[in-house]
């Protein structure tokens, strides 16, 4: 297991290098830089700025220097936040995104898994059709439709929640729900599929035959196998949570990393874009690794390979 983890971590290095290279050249070849908009700045000040941020060196020198800075985790100053580095921005705003993501995931699992289990154990009854139609709706509805509509209904018409912000606990409800409902729908479908397969297998019949209650047969015996598709979905789900947070944080004005990334793209803050992309990529690879380990722990078939 340890060698497996180390090997995967080793594989991550060239991938990260490739992502760094692609991102670096894509944003540097783009027209417009961090100093090219808004007010006209005097020539000599612009010159000083270009020098300070290291834009005067040849591109390949900048490529190497920025790479080294990221390896040493000694990040350059940002053009859109004076006196701060990407590390400051990330350490300040990522916890917000993480909290949002965890709430969303909790909502997704607590709604999705029970719905899927009930649908599978009552296949082709209304207990199956109702949650599955709702799940289909949840998958088709885009986040940026669900979010504003929820804000309209619960924030403005009913006044149960706030419309935007991230200051009080109440503010967490709508963003987490918006982000979580899509995954709840997806997880419900995956759980139902996995459970249907397991429920017809021999060992569940054995469990029932020896007199286990229906609840015990389904939840204790079958769920462990039936949940596997959900576990393998968690990796891609995390990548989706990251990009989903761009939209949700924009809708509800949450000061998370996703909002910062979108603003960095709008403001052309090269260094912040680059660092954030690398951070996201590492995060996703780490999450995929964790999911793989979890899968091996849950599925005895994979353990001896």
């Amino acid at each position, binding site marked *: 297991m340890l060698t497996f983890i180390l090997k995967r971590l080793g594989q991550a290095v060239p991938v990260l290098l490739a992502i760094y290279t692609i*991102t670096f050249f894509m944003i540097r070849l*783009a027209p417009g830089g961090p100093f090219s908009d808004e007010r006209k700045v005097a020539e000599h000040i612009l010159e000083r700025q270009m020098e300070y941020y290291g834009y005067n060196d040849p591109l390949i020198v900048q490529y190497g220097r920025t790479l080294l800075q990221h390896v040493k985790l000694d990040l350059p100053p940002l053009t859109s936040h004076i006196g701060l580095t990407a590390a400051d921005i990330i350490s300040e705003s990522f916890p917000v995104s993480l909290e949002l993501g965890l709430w969303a995931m909790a909502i997704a699992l607590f709604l999705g898994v029970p719905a899927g289990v009930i649908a599978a154990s009552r296949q082709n009854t209304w207990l199956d059709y109702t949650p599955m139609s709702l799940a289909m709706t949840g998958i*088709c509805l885009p986040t940026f*439709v669900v979010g504003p509509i929820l804000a309209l209904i619960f924030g403005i018409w009913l006044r149960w929640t706030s419309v935007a912000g991230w200051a009080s606990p109440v503010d967490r409800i709508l963003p987490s729900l918006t982000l979580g409902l899509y995954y709840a729908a997806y997880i419900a479908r995956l759980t139902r599929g996995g459970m249907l397969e397991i429920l017809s297998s021999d060992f569940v019949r054995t469990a029932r035959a020896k007199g286990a209650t229906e609840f015990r047969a389904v939840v204790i015996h079958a769920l462990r196998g039936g949940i596997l598709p959900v576990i393998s979905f968690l990796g891609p789900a995390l990548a989706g949570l990251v990009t989903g947070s761009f939209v949700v944080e924009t*809708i509800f004005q949450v000061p998370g990393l996703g909002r910062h990334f*979108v603003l960095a793209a*709008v403001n052309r803050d090269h260094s912040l874009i680059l660092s954030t992309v690398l951070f*996201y990529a590492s995060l996703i690879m780490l999450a995929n690794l964790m999911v793989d380990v979890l899968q091996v722990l849950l599925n005895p078939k994979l353990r001896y390979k």
Partner: protein
Amino acid sequence: MHLSPKIKTEPEAPRSLWTDSFRRLLDNRLALFGLGFFAFISIMCYLGPFAYRLSPDSQVLALESTLPFTKAQLVEVRYDSEKATPDEVTTLVDFGEVYALDPEADTAALSRDGTLTLKGIKFDAVERFHLLGTDSKGRDILARIMRGGRISLGVAFLATLTALLIGVNYGLVSGYFGGRLDVLMMRFVDILYAIPFLIFVILLMILFDGFRYKILLVFIAIGAVEWLTMARIVRGQVLHLKEQEFISAARATGVKTFSILSKHLAPNLLGPVVVYSTLLIPAVMLLESTLSFLGLGMGANMASWGTMIKDGQESMRSAPWELIAPSIFFSATLFAMNFLGDGLRDALDVKSAKD
């Protein structure tokens, strides 16, 4: 007893794979509904403007945020510097060409014959019917939905076409030639997969910023991201197909590699490619609208459904229909396309396009 077995002399008419598939599709109500709704939306967006002749851009400030299904009476005061008495008429036309008649205002009143006289000049009143109301800038929502739909559908089709071209060719080459080239090409796809694709699209949008034909580049940018899954599906299919006899036969008889790829392999990929393309269209519409929603899309004068939903969110306190109307059209179209795609997948019996 003499048995005379009834032998059918006439063989049953052969049924091709496509007739069978078509029959299965017709049996699927949801898919048919999807197809019907998609046809309705396309006709509405492309032909609707000929029947519903309000401009999506004309702003009538006096008519801002009118409720859906309400009639508005207004007088069109065309600016005519020679005829019009400058003072009063210019103040009216300052807000554009059209002046809405406010029933409470006592400065200008509509007479019984439906005309308005200002400084001795007579203007005819027209009745205007905003089916879905107007937005916070006084623009007709339905007209904007029709134009937004044209943009969304146009982007979706062109981007899907781009993804199709890149993905099919990439997958064909990678799968057919195999070996080290295959490993290299698929490794590249894996790397691109590791970047969340919205991030990649945002990077592409930055790269293409400032170009004159940005809308074209948006198609390409989105297509350039969405081809990855297509390439994987095609490669998988080719790996399976190239071991079959008809390819060996073609190779043995000296058919050129290019012809094998284009004439023997490509037609056999039609099923999965059609299915995946149908599912790709809603995915692209979603991506394009997400970009517009984030403010990284095509800009204010090319308002797609995503932009409209964003604008609607900003004025949802005063005019919730401005948010609700485009949301309903957008979601219903996504539903319809997904139903159609799922139906086609079942009809053509293609294994799940997701991996």
